[in-house]
């Protein structure tokens, strides 16, 4: 049905709009002042932590334990094995306590 494809197309357009819009605005306004620079530096910390926070706080305690363990492991080993260990730990915790 054509309506579905119109909807898909509009959603794709909105997604492309937000993914290009920020860059175009920043490039248009030219040199950035120190506050904007500081704000941009904080984007990954602020947005990614806001994304994950409810999972840690609102989920079962085993979820929070697994995520914290993976973060600590990442100090010593690379991301892929750290996450693999985290998933294994989580599967065991859920099997035992959930």
């Amino acid at each position, binding site marked *: 049905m054509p309506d*579905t494809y119109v909807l898909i197309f509009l959603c794709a357009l909105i997604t492309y709009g937000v993914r*290009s819009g920020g860059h175009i605005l920043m490039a248009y306004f030219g040199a950035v002042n120190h506050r904007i620079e500081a704000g*941009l530096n904080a984007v990954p910390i602020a947005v990614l932590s806001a994304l994950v926070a409810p999972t840690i706080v609102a989920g079962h305690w085993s979820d929070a334990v697994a995520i914290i363990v993976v973060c600590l492991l990442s100090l010593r080993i690379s991301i892929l094995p750290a996450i693999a260990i985290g998933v294994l730990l989580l599967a065991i915790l859920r099997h035992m306590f959930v």
Partner: protein
Amino acid sequence: MAEVRDALKDVLPVVGAMAPYSAVFGALAIDQGLTLTELLVTSGSIFAVASQYVMVDLMLQGLPIWSILLAVLAVNFRHVLYSAASVRWLGGFSRKQKALAFFLLCDPQYATCEARHVSKPITPIYYFTYAACVYGGWMISNLLGAVFGKLLGDINRFGLDLILPMFFAVLVFGFRKKPRFAIVLIVSVSISVLTFFTIGSPWHITLGGLSGILVAAVLSKPSSELEIQHA
């Protein structure tokens, strides 16, 4: 081709983490009544899994188009911030390369480039090698999920549903040496959790993220610019 090798090394864990999510989306979309063609057009043209869940869900509830579009905009709004931040590392790209790069600017792509550009410039070869793997893995997993969906069962049992949150948490932790890390983290997490329990998802991402950025901007001092560049 050190750039290609670096990109492949960085993208491998991401594709592994995304595959179950993408397969589940494929399975779910077919289960809810999308045709295989509609699924592939959706994933191929939108390329943003959270908003696609929202779109399929609201579409099948029969909601008016404008409210579906508003929901998709809310879920995707964080990309405006990624896009703005990309000004600092997409400088070497041509106009056409930028136009394509924006289309491919998903969460892991942004996070990886943000972490890498501190020590090495982001080249088109690096960016598009990484993006091609994410996009290819995404489409293939979608297709596999759609075809073998019934066999997949409940992925929560295996702890796979937390792979992406784990990946994002590790990335955040990796930025701990950045200026004002602690205060930005505390503010974003507090506002995010508060929003999550009051207004509800997906506004916790937008409001939590914006408040952390605002705090960083307010606390910034002119002399700190050099410090940021070398951080």
